[in-house]
């Protein structure tokens, strides 16, 4: 049993070529075989998956087919799952079982997917290497000495290793695109507001967005349709209509896209990455794209602005983890203040504490204007930059990351170097734009990703150009160890 894509799986199930229970068991076996090494999963939801698989098989027998009937999926452990442990990669929530489902989970469940388990991630999605997880680092299946990227490292690694056909992720500053790039798969971060944030444990509310990992762009198109849409439980979700992304991708229309390459995204690249990137640009030209050099002059300020806004919001979002109602509560608490201090000191890891401290500082009386307000101004400049760029071009491309994956442990003691690896991804979060990383080649046998940024709610053209690119290349078909 070796399916190459979500599309293949859905067709096989619909045609009754494979039963959902067989398929599910097969993936569960693969996970059990590989995950001791890769550490992609925090929780394997075997019983839940098998029960659901049987139910879907019964439906299929009666020719009741839902949009994603029988599709196995791995869910990032940041999404609340009813009656199932939801840890967010933190000791703080090691004992937390959610009483409700996130909207993303609800939608995917209703579409007929089979949740295989909850995937490992940087603690509270804070990290770019999956090394900050309470459950230990996730390994990159291309070389287990390397990080898979983060924060959605478990989800990315699982899809790259083909132990799950697809998975969900969240992206606050690059947490989908960067691991997709480092693991050689597709990772789509939709427009802010496209997918409901309800039930997704908040890191930085104005930046967080749920998305997906797949091996090819068409699969992402199929899944995005089912995840998207207005949710009355999320005031920031959008009511912009959700198109049929897949049929848009498959339509014959030749768009002759004008594609912008920001000088700021390529000027500091090393030769290897530069070569791989410009090879992929040639492919785009081949499929009819016009290439144009543009400027996003505030790119270099993105990481700084991000490192103020995200910690500021996180410092407030994480206040609820106080040991009072759920989550970790210290045994060493004699009074209220102690309860707070000890529970939070014990429950949060180093990186989370660092960001809470930075954010608390940035919001403090007397510093608010200098940091938070200033960062918001930069954010507006970056958004305007993109707005002007999209007056000239349809899509913007660049490498997703400045380089291939780094080794586990390599940047753990250098947070600034770690933060700078997000330089090409954070600005789209600050502007709320959709972006996707697709495989574009290798450097020293480790994958590299091509980032495609679209205008607000223009996921369909990101997906279409990705699909066109993948018609001409086979990078997305490469599997680790083969």
């Amino acid at each position, binding site marked *: 049993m070796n399916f190459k894509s979500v599309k293949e799986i859905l067709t096989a199930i619909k045609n009754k070529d494979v039963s959902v229970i067989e398929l599910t068991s097969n993936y569960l076996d693969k996970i059990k075989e590989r995950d001791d090494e890769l550490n992609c999963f925090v929780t394997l939801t075997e019983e839940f998956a098998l029960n659901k698989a049987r139910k879907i098989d019964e439906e299929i027998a009666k020719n009741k087919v839902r949009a994603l009937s029988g599709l196995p999926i791995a869910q990032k452990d940041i999404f609340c799952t009813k009656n199932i442990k939801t840890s967010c990669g933190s000791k703080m929530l090691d004992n937390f079982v959610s009483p409700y489902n996130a909207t993303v989970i609800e939608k995917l469940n209703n579409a007929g997917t089979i949740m295989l388990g909850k995937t490992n991630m940087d603690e509270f999605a804070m990290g770019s290497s999956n090394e900050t997880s309470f459950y230990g680092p996730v390994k990159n299946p291309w070389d287990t000495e390397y990080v898979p990227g983060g924060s959605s490292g478990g989800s990315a690694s699982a899809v790259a290793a083909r132990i799950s056909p697809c998975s969900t992720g969240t992206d606050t500053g690059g947490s989908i695109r960067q691991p997709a790039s480092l693991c050689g798969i597709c990772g789509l971060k939709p427009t802010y507001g496209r997918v409901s944030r309800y039930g997704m444990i908040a890191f930085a*509310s104005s930046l967080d967005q749920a998305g997906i990992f797949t091996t090819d762009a068409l699969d992402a198109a199929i899944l995005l349709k089912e995840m998207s849409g207005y949710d009355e439980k999320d005031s920031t979700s959008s009511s912009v209509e959700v198109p049929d992304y897949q049929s848009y991708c498959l339509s014959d229309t030749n768009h002759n896209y004008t594609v912008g390459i920001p000088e700021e995204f390529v000027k500091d690249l090393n030769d290897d990455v530069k070569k791989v990137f410009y090879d992929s640009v040639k492919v785009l030209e081949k499929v009819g794209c016009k290439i144009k050099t543009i400027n996003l002059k505030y790119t270099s300020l993105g990481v700084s602005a991000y490192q103020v806004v995200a910690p500021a919001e996180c410092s407030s979002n994480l*206040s609820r983890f106080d040991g009072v109602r759920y989550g970790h509560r210290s045994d060493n608490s004699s009074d209220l203040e102690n309860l707070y201090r000890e529970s939070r000191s014990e429950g949060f890891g180093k990186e989370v504490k660092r960001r809470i401290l930075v954010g608390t500082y940035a919001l403090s009386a007397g510093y608010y204007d200098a940091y938070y307000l200033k960062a918001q101004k930069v954010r507006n400049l970056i958004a305007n930059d993109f707005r002007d760029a999209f007056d000239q071009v349809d899509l913007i491309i660049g490498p997703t990351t400045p380089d291939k994956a780094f080794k586990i442990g390599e940047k753990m003691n250098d947070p600034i170097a770690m933060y700078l690896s997000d330089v090409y991804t954070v600005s789209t979060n600050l502007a709320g734009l959709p972006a996707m990383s697709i495989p574009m080649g290798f450097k020293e046998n480790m994958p590299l990703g091509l980032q495609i940024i679209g205008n607000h709610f223009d996921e369909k053209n990101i997906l279409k150009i990705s699909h066109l690119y993948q018609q001409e290349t086979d990078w997305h078909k490469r599997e680790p160890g083969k």
Partner: protein
Amino acid sequence: MWETVIGLEIHVQLSTESKLFSSASTDFGADQNTQASVIDLAMPGVLPVLNKNAVDMAVKFGLAVDAKIARKSIFARKNYFYPDLPKGYQISQYELPIVFDGKLDIYVDGTKKSVGITRAHLEEDAGKSIHDLYEDESAIDLNRAGTPLIEIVSEPDMRSSREAVTYLKKIHSIVKSLGISDGNMQEGSFRCDANISLRRPGDEFGTRAEIKNINSFKFVESAINYEVIRQREILESGESVIQETRLYDPKKDETRPMRSKEEANDYRYFPDPDLLPVEISQEKIDKIKLTLPELPDDKKDRYKNNYGLKEDDAEILSLNSNLSTFFDESIKGSDSDPQLVANFILSELVGLCNKHNVDISVATIKPSHISQLMNYIVQGKISSKQAKDILNELWTGKLDIDEIIRSKNIEQVSDTGILMKEAQKILEKHPKEVQDYKNGKDKLMGFFVGQIMKEMKGKANPKVLNEILNKLLKE
């Protein structure tokens, strides 16, 4: 000579059915933690969704105090840790409140005074910490968490505790008239913080102390009076008042500083990224304006102009919406002079309510009782003295006025036939006095009335009796 400067911050719980950001019920008195949804419990991943009714209510309030309504207002997070604040922040409004720049006219000793209303903003209430339920542990009830409030902030325009209480009562009356709050002070639906400072007239404002969470009109007055004396003593001894937060203890009738720990907070306000700015169109504002009911000032004018009530009575009635509702209902079924009805309610009924510490809205005596009593007085069926006796009986739970009159045998006799007979009987008995009267001894009239009253056990209608006697004695 010191001048007192007072500003008030009033917290008013809005009477929406559900909470400000969740669909949980806001009913008071439910079992602990049964009205807290995953949102009120601040479960990981939940998001707030604004209750639009609360927004409409805030707009109503703004319109009622001649304030500006922000076409765009913003919710902010006020960050601090406390167990009854599940999110670790309160969602409030900071930089752009929904209502600003209003004013309210109050009347103290017949003098009009305008009090500025700086702003009124929407925010959520916290839960309750309960420290006396278990011996070594504190409990938390989150039923109240997320209940919508408006916080109404005045300018430091008041100069005495009486002005402050009058302003407070007027705000209370407005929110009740608007139907946006039950105004129940015991249940905490209407509570206030008072900022008080002293200065020499003409000087800059002095250092203020803030007295937190006062929940009765009387306590507000006492707390301010206490605080004024305290600050005056400090200033007169040449020392300075410390800016601090204090609590009023009604048992000891004094204010005390809160522990400094409880106030040493940097709230780190910032716009809540989970909520969009609240945008209100002019059309919406105009539409809400049309729904505004009669407000206290209009009511007062109506009482004076339509009913001819005295200024003071019109003021008192209009400032208490339960009382004015009761009065309006009583007037509806009554043929009596409205001023007499007002007198009866304000002196007799309110007296009883105060004595028994019962709000008029929940008293067993209903407006229909008052109308009936007032009508019986007009008809001469009972005297006003008897009406008071009947009122006392009504208070004890007997609710049928006619039944009380029968059982107490206090009905007045106004029947001319009966009175004529009794009068003739007495006049025949006293021919000498009749002759003296006819010879000009006018004061003997009292003697005849007295004799008849004695005979009739005081039940004769004095007015009718007088007429009959006059007629008989002229013959």
